[in-house]
Structures are given as structure tokens and as C-alpha cells.
């Protein structure tokens, strides 16, 4: 019986995914989970735009509308964009650095399950009819004022998911530090690995402030503390600072890996080495560094004082420099190259001008006095959608097409992919370009309706129309995925795009469970391209063929996450909660949930988990069966 090709029934497969610690399977889980929430967030967005299609529309009630955009923002940032990026990080980074897995496979699974249970917790609010309604920023005064458990769902859901994200961040850094194949020096690492590394560093330092700020608000709402109670000496501005100390790096956590993905796609389809690699690495670090020093530009109108506003304005502008370096390096990667316009490349080409627009409007908002006008209007809504959709979502869609064969062993249909791009790209610009002007014409953000006759009608109508175009694009993508999964052709080659440069394209699609039969020896930047140019058909091995040590699967991550999930419900109904519907049972459930969590952790710690070995002979079998490995 071969460990790699063993056949399993449906439930066998389900069980395998529930207990998996294999980074490739976890990538699938992240992709499915993130994709699900992406669709959910997309539907919410569509409802928002339907409501704003005409003046004084009554499609959604005011309260429902507030819930809708709160959940849209929260879902898209925490439950869609981040996990989808994690999907690609998991699928690609270990392959790019020539590793058999991530540094902590168990933690990797735990990270996914925490995200998943956190996301479910947050969205259960819809079934309770008490939905978060204070915006994804949940500013303290309003979130303390919010009735019902909506905000509690937000807090606890994000807390659980946030723990998962933090773990994954640590895991990726450790993986990149310790698991690189021989010869893979830092300055030979592929760009996506670099951006994953820096983004994970940002996660490491940005999520603890979020954890604490969520605790502060949670304690105020559930346990009677006074952090944000002004009459008891509290201060609500603390929330804003902490939220943005987290929130600003968070957008770089999203955009840096997106940059990394494009830095893989553009050279591949330009058939040319990434221009200015070392300056790209430097720019990535600089963006990460500056990302921590500019949070208060979200708070120019709070009244921090002139000195603070001026300092943060100038610091914010500085970020344009490394970002500009990146844009020009991409352009000059293509310059002199041999451009092949595939679907992933289309997104890359769509990304550059779209993201430049999003970037420069960011600089406009860095001009503090001008931001007094732009802040909290549709201008900023346009700005951040240009960066997040035009940057991150385009990158995710591009990567979906680009890495689909590597992740699932089939090629997505190019023609359908092309139509997805057309609808999505046109719809995106239609939806958001006009919103710049809506903001300038005096439309605040987060309004459930607008009055007729204030010059806002046409702009809103155009914007809503664009949203439908984007929706059509997304539907075509889903159709494409379903069709491909059902009857797509299997990929038989390692490098289906033909111009792969990094080591992930040197092994079969999808790779065997152990990735590399022998850990490769890296001889240059773009290792696989280097070997190809040397006329080699495979990567040189750095070790003799020998038994491979593999980690065991485990069901414990689900139990740890479930424990936290249960404890979350208990915490919501403790007697001291602000809603006033608590009971002693809440405490009981809280304690039971925590007991389950700590108990599961204890079980994990007390047992020896030594993993298993894939025998040398089995590996040789694999090769005979079709030369899969390496």
C-alpha cells in the first residue's frame, strides 16, 4: 500500500481533510473557506449597492444596512482576503523554498481551524438576529452603544480568527527562516516568499494590538470594565489608536503578498527575470517598516494636534517611494520581455494602472488638510477599494488561475477566465471610479440612504450597475471552477505554463505529499529557470534518496478551536454583560469551553507525536509509476 496514492472513500477524504497537517491540503481548506466567505461578502456588497441604487431607497432598513456593510468589511478583510492569501502561501511557499512542509504542521492546521471557527462564530450572528452594526472599525463609543450581541459576535469571532492568523504568521516566518533548501540563501528567495516573510512579520506585530483592543472592548461589554467609559476615566480614542495600529499594517499584510504574487506572474509571462530584485526586497521591507509608523493618518480629523497630523502626513507620503519602486520594477520587468497574455497576466496588466490610481489617491489623503474633506466620504471608499480590489483581489484572482494546476492538478478554462476578467475589471472601475467624485460632491460613507436632488443620484446608479458586472464576473469564475473540477483535463507536466521560474514548477502538479523526493540544491535565484537554461530536466538533489520523515495528522486542532468557540458563546452570556441577558450558565459554558481547549492542548503535549516515515522503496515505486517526484 502506497502512502501517496492510497484510495479513500468520500468519508475517508473528509476525515483526511479534518485531520490533515499537510500544507497542500491546508491550502485547499483555506481556499475553500476563504472562497466561501468571499462569496458571502460579495453578496453583502451587492445588497449594499442595490440599496444605494436610487435616492431614498427602502430595499434595506437602516439597521440592516449598517449590519450589511459591517459584515461586508469584516468578512472581506478577515475571512476572505487573509485566508485566501494564506491558501496561496501554504500551497506555494514551502515548494518555492524547497521544503517538505512548513515548520509547524500541527500549528498550521490549528491556524486554519481557528480561522474557520472564528468566521462561523461571526456569521452565526445572522441567525441570532443580532448582527455587528458599528462598521468593521467598531469605534468604541458606538460599539458600546450598540444593543444586542452583534458587537460581541464581532469581537469574539475576530478574536478566535485572529489567534489563528497570528499562529500562521509565526509559522511562515519560522518556515522561511529554518526550512530553506541548501543553497537557498535569503537573497535567492522568490519574491512571493519574501513578501510572505515580511507580511508574516507584520502579522506578528500587528495582531497583538488587535488582540488587546478586542479584549478591552470585550471586557467593557461583558465584564464591566471601564476602559471606554468616559465618565469613569476611560477614553475611547485608545480604541481608535489600537485598532489602526493593527489596521494599517493589516492592509500591508494583504497587499504585500499580492505584490509577491504579481512578482511571480509578471516575470513568468514576460519570460524575463524580475527587474531590480534586490531593490524589490528592500522596498518590501521599507513598506513593512513604514506601515507601522503611519496609523494615525486614519485619525487626522480626531483632533490629535497639528504636530501629530503633520508628522503622520509626511510619514505616510514616504510610503509612496517604495511602492513606486515596485511599480516601475514591474514595468521594466516587462520591458524587453516576451509578453504572453494569459489570464493571470491579464490580471497583472489590469492591476498596474488600477493600483496606481489607488496608490495616488492614498497620497492625496495623506495631505492632512485635504483629508479633512476626504475622510469618511465615498472618496475613501473608492480609494481603499482601488487598493484592495485593484490590488489584492486582482492578485487573488490571478493566483487562482496561475496556481490552480499546481494546487488541484487541472487547468482552469482560459476562455471563461478571460470573460471573468473582462466583467470584473469593467465592473470594478465602473463601481469605484465614480465614488471618488461622490465623495467630493459631499456624500459621507456608511450612509444607508441619500436624499434626492443633492447631485448624488446618477453617480450612485452607475456605481451600483458596476457592482452587477463584478458579480457576473464572479459567477463565471465559479462556473469555471465547477466545470474544471468536473471535467477539466488533468495536468501531466510539472510546468504547465511553460515558463515557470521557481522550484514549485519543478515538481509534479499537484506535488506528492512529501513534495520533494530529495531536497533540491539551489544554485541560483530563479532556481528552476537556471536549471532549465542549463538544459537540466530536474533540480539537482542535495541529499541521497532516503526515508522521508512526515508529521502525523491530528484531529486535536479542531477540538482546540471548538473549545474556544464554545467558550466564546459562554462569554457572551456571562451575568455581567452589557446587554443584560446573561446568566450563570454563561460562566459554566465559558469554563467548559476553556476546559475543552486546554484539555486538548494538554493531550497534545503529553503524548509523544513522532510522525512516520515514507520508506525509500516506496519513493522508488513512485518514480517508476510515472516519474512523479522531482
Amino acid at each position, binding site marked *: 500500500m502506497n502512502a501517496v496514492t492510497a484510495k479513500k472513500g468520500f468519508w475517508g477524504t473528509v476525515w483526511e481533510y479534518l485531520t490533515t497537517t499537510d500544507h497542500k491540503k491546508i491550502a485547499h481548506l483555506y481556499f475553500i473557506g476563504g472562497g466561501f466567505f468571499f462569496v458571502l461578502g460579495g453578496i453583502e456588497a451587492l445588497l449594499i449597492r442595490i440599496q444605494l441604487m436610487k435616492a431614498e431607497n427602502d430595499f434595506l432598513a437602516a439597521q440592516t444596512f449598517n449590519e450589511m456593510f459591517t459584515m461586508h468589511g469584516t468578512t472581506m478583510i478577515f475571512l476572505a482576503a487573509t485566508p485566501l492569501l494564506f491558501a496561496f502561501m501554504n500551497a506555494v511557499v514551502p515548494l518555492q523554498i524547497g521544503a517538505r512542509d512548513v515548520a509547524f504542521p500541527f500549528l498550521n492546521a490549528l491556524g486554519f481551524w481557528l480561522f474557520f471557527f472564528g468566521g462561523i462564530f461571526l456569521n452565526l450572528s445572522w441567525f441570532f438576529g443580532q448582527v455587528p452594526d458599528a462598521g468593521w472599525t467598531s469605534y468604541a463609543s458606538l460599539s458600546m452603544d450598540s444593543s444586542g450581541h452583534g458587537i460581541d459576535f464581532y469581537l469574539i469571532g475576530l478574536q478566535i480568527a485572529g489567534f489563528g492568523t497570528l499562529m500562521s504568521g509565526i509559522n511562515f516566518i519560522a518556515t522561511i527562516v529554518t526550512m530553506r533548501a541548501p543553497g537557498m540563501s535569503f537573497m535567492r528567495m522568490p519574491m512571493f516568499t519574501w513578501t510572505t516573510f515580511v507580511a508574516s512579520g507584520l502579522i506578528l506585530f500587528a495582531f497583538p494590538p488587535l488582540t488587546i483592543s478586542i479584549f478591552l472592548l470585550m471586557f467593557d461589554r461583558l465584564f464591566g470594565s471601564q476602559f471606554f467609559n468616559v465618565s469613569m476615566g476611560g477614553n475611547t480614542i485608545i480604541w481608535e489608536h489600537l485598532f489602526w495600529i493593527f489596521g494599517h499594517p493589516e492592509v500591508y499584510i494583504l497587499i504585500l503578498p499580492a505584490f509577491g504574487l504579481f512578482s511571480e506572474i509578471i516575470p513568468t509571462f514576460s519570460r524575463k527575470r524580475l527587474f531590480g530584485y534586490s531593490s524589490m526586497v528592500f522596498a518590501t521591507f521599507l513598506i513593512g517598516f513604514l506601515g507601522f509608523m503611519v496609523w494615525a493618518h486614519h485619525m487626522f480629523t480626531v483632533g490629535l494636534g497639528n504636530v501629530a497630523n503633520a508628522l503622520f502626513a509626511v510619514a505616510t507620503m514616504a510610503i509612496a517611494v517604495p511602492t513606486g519602486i515596485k511599480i516601475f520594477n514591474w514595468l521594466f520587468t516587462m520591458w524587453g520581455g516576451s509578453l504572453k497574455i494569459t489570464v493571470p497576466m491579464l490580471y497583472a496588466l489590469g492591476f498596474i494602472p488600477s493600483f496606481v490610481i489607488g496608490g495616488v489617491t492614498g497620497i492625496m489623503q495623506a495631505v492632512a488638510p*485635504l483629508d479633512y474633506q476626504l475622510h469618511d466620504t465615498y472618496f475613501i471608499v473608492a480609494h481603499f477599494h482601488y487598493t484592495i480590489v485593484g490590488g489584492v483581489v486582482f492578485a487573488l484572482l490571478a493566483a487562482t488561475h496561475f496556481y490552480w494546476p499546481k494546487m488541484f492538478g487541472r487547468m482552469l478554462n482560459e476562455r471563461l477566465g478571460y470573460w471573468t476578467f473582462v466583467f470584473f475589471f469593467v465592473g470594478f472601475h465602473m463601481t469605484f471610479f465614480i465614488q471618488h467624485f461622490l465623495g467630493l460632491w*459631499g456624500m459621507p*460613507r456608511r450612509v444607508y440612504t441619500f436624499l434626492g436632488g443633492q447631485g448624488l443620484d446618477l453617480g450612485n446608479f452607475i456605481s451600483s450597475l458596476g457592482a452587477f458586472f463584478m458579480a457576473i464576473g464572479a459567477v463565471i469564475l465559479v462556473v469555471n471552477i465547477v466545470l474544471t473540477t468536473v471535467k477539466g483535463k488533468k495536468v501531466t507536466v510539472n510546468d504547465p505554463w511553460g515558463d515557470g521560474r521557481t522550484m514549485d514548477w519543478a515538481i509534479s502538479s499537484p506535488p506528492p505529499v512529501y513534495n520533494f523526493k530529495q531536497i533540491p540544491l539551489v544554485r541560483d535565484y530563479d532556481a528552476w529557470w537556471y536549471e532549465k537554461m542549463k538544459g537540466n530536466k530536474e533540480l539537482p538533489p542535495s541529499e541521497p534518496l532516503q526515508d522521508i520523515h512526515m508529521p502525523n495528522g491530528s484531529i486535536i486542532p479542531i477540538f482546540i478551536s471548538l473549545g474556544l468557540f464554545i467558550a466564546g458563546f459562554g462569554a457572551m452570556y456571562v451575568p455581567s454583560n452589557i446587554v443584560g441577558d446573561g446568566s450563570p450558565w454563561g460562566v459554566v459554558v465559558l469554563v467548559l469551553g476553556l476546559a475543552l481547549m486546554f484539555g486538548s492542548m494538554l493531550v497534545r503535549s503529553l503524548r509523544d507525536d513522532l510522525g512516520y516515515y515514507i520508506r525509500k522503496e516506496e519513493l522508488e515505486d513512485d518514480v517508476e509509476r510515472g516519474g512523479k517526484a522531482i
Partner: protein
Amino acid sequence: MKKWQLSLVFLSSLLLAGCGEPYLSTLHPAGEVAEIQFNLLLLSTAIMVLVISTVVIIYTIVLIRFRRNKENENEIPEQVEGSNKLEVVWTTIPIILLTILAIPTVIATFYLGDTSGMHKVNAQGEREAVVINVRAHQYWWEFEYPDYGIVTSQDLVVPTDERVYFNLLASDVKHSFWVPAAGGKMDVNTDNENTFFLVFDSEKAEEVGNIFYGKCAELCGPSHALMDFKVVALPRDEFDAWVSAMQNYEEKEPETDVAKYGKELFEANSCIACHAITPDDTRPYEARLAPNLADFGNRTTVAGFLEFNKENIKKWIQNPGEFKPGNKMYDRANFTDEELDALAEYLLTLKAQE
């Protein structure tokens, strides 16, 4: 600057100013503050258009020149590592552009943030400038003139062509005070008072019939979208007249029977407990739970956003929850049409001046 760049700047500024309503749009600056901000908008837009066009030009050339086709299908392009010279170029030029932008930014930040003028006093020890305490509540605005002993709400009355200073404080949750045509917003925090100033230009005010639109710009609950107010910008003499009329406000007995009945209802239903009907409300702002109704008859809107007519007053009194969900008056009442008529009639008699 080259010719085409100039025309590009011109075109973009035309587009920026082309639409939007002059009483609401930031693109029709009606005062010094908004103008400074508008000029920064033009400057930054110009720089940014420059950047975008550079990128687009390179991008277009790349797309035209370097496509793979049948002939060069198997060619391997030269694997260029990079170019230090180019890196220096596209590091330096952005730094220069940003410096051009940063200098006016810093200057304007300090200029607009300087509210020391509000403490200036004349020889008699009286404050020279008009200072208004803005108190934001879910979902209405109160305007207190501490130097004149006047409290009013929903309609902010200001003099034109001079700096008007604001102290901002919220009673429940955070709001944000924004008169787009006159200048950028300032948050209304629950923690402390924020101060800033605006200027309302007399000519621009005339163009819009002396009324600018103001909005709450920070999410503050379900009816955040409707937390509007109006700014009545009057020439100094008319403003002074309004102030003295408000200072000498006297509660007049209603003349018609309907209005008298309205007053009885107003008192019997204890509307008076929350709504003051004279502008000299001396209670602390936390105790002023509802909009001051003195001078209600001269309001420009009902509830801050509905057209001002008797029908809307009646509808609002009967069913405020439908118009402003989550407002703190009540959801709906059960007045008869006759009672509503009387209440509206009475409220319309509350006027400081004709």
C-alpha cells in the same frame, strides 16, 4: 510644464468642479478653509495625474512593443538583473514630487489647526470672534452660543466673511461635523472638546440662498445617514439682528385657537420636558435631551432633513421612527389628525423674528 500637461491639469480641474451641488460639494469651496483644501486637491491631483500618465505611457509602450508572437515565440529575452541608475531615478523623482506636496501640507496643517484666535478679546474683555459650542446627539445637532446665551438646534446661524470657531463635543457616541462647501470635517468626540474654525464666503453664500448643507460624517447608528443640518450664513448685520432677536426672545401666547390647543397638547404630553422652547436654556448640555424649539417657525428643515412644511411636521410628530430609525424621541405616537394639526400650528408660531 509642457502644454499638454497644462491642459491635462485644466481638464481634470474642470471635471472636478463640473458636478456636485454648490451648497454641498467640496468642489465649490465657499470660504477660506475650503479653498485651501481645494487648492491642495488641485495640487495633489496634478502631481498624481503626472505620475499616472508616466506609468501609463511606459505601460502602453510595453504592451505594444514586447508582445510574444509567432515569430519570436521561442526567443529567450535577455535576463536583465536591474539597473541602479533607473532605481535611483524612480526613487529620487517621487521624493521630489512628495516634497513639493509635503511643504504646503505641513503649512496648511498648522494654519488650519491654529485656533488661538478664539481666545482673542477686545478692550472690554469681550471675545472678538464668534464661538459656537456644537453638541452632537443621536441624531441631531445643538448649537450653543456661549457668549450670547443662546441655544438653538438643527439650523446653525453664522456670520459670513469671518472666522467662526467651533467647540465640538458629543453626548452619546462619536459624530463628525462636516460642512463640505465650507471646509473639512472635525470629529465630535465623547472624550473632550475639539476646536476648529470655518469661514463662510458672502458671495458664495448668496449664490446658494445663504444656506449650506452640513452632515454627520462618522457612523453613529441607524440614522447616521439622516443626521443632516443646515448652515444659515448671514451677513454680519443680519447675523447681529438674529442674535439680538434670539436674546430678546419672548414666549408669545399663541393667537389662534388651534395653536392654543397645540400648546396645551405640547404641555400635556410633556414634550416640554425635553424640548425647550426658549433659546436661553441654561441647563448643562447633557440635560438638554432634545432639540431646542425656539425659533422653530424659521427652521429650514423638519428633523434636519425633511422639507420644511406643515405636512412634514405632522408626519414627523406622529411617526418619527419611520423617518429616523433609532431616534430617541419615540417610535410612533397616536395623535388624531386634529391634534397633529394643532401641534404643528403651535410649533410654527415659535419664531424669534418674522
